[in-house]
């Protein structure tokens, strides 16, 4: 497909409706990033998504867009509940891959001398990397409870407190989860992975708040300059991957019975009203809840590690969850379309929800300032905290970017890193890193990713979410 782009303004480009497209595509970007975007097939994927039945508004692309499977990564699409579809590829294999940010009372200068030891302690205590298994052993009844109760299950088991749930998207448990729709395979793959970080671009990072952009919102989020924060980026592990795989294959088999053409096999989908569609949503919710339980457990173990390594009390540490967001999910949400309030199914694949101030789903503590939007940088690069703005509800179904996205393949990154001591380069920048995988550091060099600051600039400039704080890494553990 030959994709034509029409610039609307400095932050938005239109892909006009052509061929089988039912709606226009809309790409949030800037003059610099749009050149990369045109380099792969991601725009074709935006156009392909626009062909799906029941799509409402635009087929959207966030500024960190890159090509994925069917849907681009950084893709957002909303569907009408009657005519629309649900697509596992529009959520992603890692269902509820997401992140959480914790604040502390500590100042970075207090703990900098201890950072190397702290990173070692975290590396010891947090299961990470390929093949890593958890110390948590789930009984059969627990397996069913985790996927329904999500983060609340973890809290009941002593991992954290009930206050954490209020600061988690969907209170850490999506409704509609039904363990009976999970395959035995999905259960088996997730059985010994609860409480593991994962590998690839997942990480746990100790950071310093190195710039505040908006004092009022930063205060509401309990952020201050020089503060130590901790970021966790992880997902639903093997359970989520298998759910996506199971349903993609089922929907792929049934696609010939539908009356619409699919331009790409990986867009396999089912009508939201169909039995298959309902079953996927129920399984997806299970995986999402597993991921929230996972991050809740990882947070608890992080706190335990910090208390021991720094020999301080919980009161001195003062760790508090700022927020937890998912960036691979499909949710039924209320949106205003042509003046009318309508429930739509919003797919966010590599995109984060961004609720504006006064939205009813916000916890009371953030009602005046908007939802924290957490944008992880990749290994050794900056992360950001933003606040959801009204522009997101008006223009992107309440969505924002999720991170930077790769520009180099793993092979290209490894080539570029050849002969370089990456962990030494990071140490020279004041960042201590430990990773399990031998190739991880080379594959994950910062040059492999888009400039996250540019991505955030677009989101801020387009009015989707506004900058609140910038976070710089001090110590990282990776799988």
């Amino acid at each position, binding site marked *: 497909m030959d994709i034509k782009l029409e610039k609307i303004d400095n932050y938005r480009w239109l892909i006009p409706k052509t061929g089988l497209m039912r709606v226009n595509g809309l790409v949030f970007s800037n003059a610099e990033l749009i050149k990369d975007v045109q380099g792969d097939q991601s725009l074709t994927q935006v156009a392909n998504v626009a062909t799906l039945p029941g799509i409402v508004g635009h087929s959207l692309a966030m500024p960190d867009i890159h090509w994925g*499977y069917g849907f681009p990564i950084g893709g957002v699409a909303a569907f009408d509940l009657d005519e629309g579809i649900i697509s596992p590829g529009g959520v992603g294999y890692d269902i509820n891959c997401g992140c959480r940010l914790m604040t502390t009372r500590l100042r970075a200068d207090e703990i900098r001398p201890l950072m190397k030891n702290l990173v070692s302690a975290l590396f010891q205590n947090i299961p990470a990397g*390929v093949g890593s298994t958890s110390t948590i052993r789930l009984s059969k009844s627990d397996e069913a409870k985790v996927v329904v109760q999500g983060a609340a299950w973890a809290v009941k088991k002593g991992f954290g407190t009930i206050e954490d749930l209020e600061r988690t998207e969907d209170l850490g448990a999506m409704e509609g989860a039904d363990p009976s729709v999970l395959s035995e395979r999905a259960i088996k793959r997730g059985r010994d992975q609860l409480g593991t970080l994962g590998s690839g671009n997942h990480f746990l990072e100790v950071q310093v708040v190195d710039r505040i952009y908006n004092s009022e919102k930063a205060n509401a989020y309990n952020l201050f300059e020089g503060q130590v924060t901790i970021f966790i980026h992880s997902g639903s592990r093997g359970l989520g991957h298998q759910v996506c795989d199971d349903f993609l294959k089922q929907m792929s088999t049934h696609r010939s019975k539908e009356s619409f053409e699919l331009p790409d096999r990986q867009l396999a989908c089912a009508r939201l009203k169909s039995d298959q569609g309902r079953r996927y949503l129920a399984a997806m919710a299970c995986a999402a809840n597993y991921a929230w339980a996972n991050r809740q457990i990882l947070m608890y173990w992080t706190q335990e590690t910090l208390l021991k390594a720094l020999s301080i009390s919980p009161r001195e540490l003062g760790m508090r969850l700022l927020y937890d967001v998912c960036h691979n999910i499909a949710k039924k949400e209320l949106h205003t379309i042509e003046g009318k309030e309508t429930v739509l199914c919003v797919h966010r694949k590599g995109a984060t929800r961004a609720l504006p101030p006064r939205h009813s789903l916000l916890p009371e503590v953030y009602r005046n300032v908007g939802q924290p939007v957490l944008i992880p940088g990749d290994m050794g690069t900056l992360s950001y905290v933003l606040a959801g703005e009204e522009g997101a509800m008006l223009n992107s179904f309440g969505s924002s970017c999720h991170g930077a996205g790769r520009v180099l393949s793993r092979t290209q990154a490894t080539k570029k890193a050849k002969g370089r001591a990456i962990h030494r380069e990071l140490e020279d920048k004041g960042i201590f890193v430990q990773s399990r995988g031998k190739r991880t550091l080379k594959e994950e060099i910062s040059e492999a990713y888009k400039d996250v600051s540019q991505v955030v600039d677009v989101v801020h400039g387009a009015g989707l979410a506004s900058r609140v704080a910038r976070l710089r890494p001090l110590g990282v553990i990776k799988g």
Partner: protein
Amino acid sequence: MDPNKLNFKFLDHTADLGIIVSGLDLKDLFKTAAKSMIKIIVKGKPAGKTNTVKLTVEGEDLADLMVRWLSEILYLFEGEKVVLTDVEIESISPTHLDAILITTSFDPSLHEILCEIKAVTYHQIEVEKKDDHWEAKVIFDV
């Protein structure tokens, strides 16, 4: 093509991992694809007790068959902690495959995990006849 080597090479893909696999015929292609994928995931000499497993896979066409075949091999590792050490494709058609798998249990003292493959995707999947051999392109989500 060297019949004594696994005929595959990596395919450059920004976000994930792809391979291009070659085989003299369809049986060889599917066997090589499975063994190549396992080689990416785990390193180690097969040792100890082996088991023989029969596997039947069905698909809509060759590309679908390839994705489903590799997904089964992947699940054996990820879900059952079983490593494929050898395979014989007994019969294959564009929509059906019968195979015998020789497997061994994953043993961390013998096997090193190199890479976590989340899934075998349909993204750009190709299974094609070239002049004197078959070729497949597969992308994995990692």
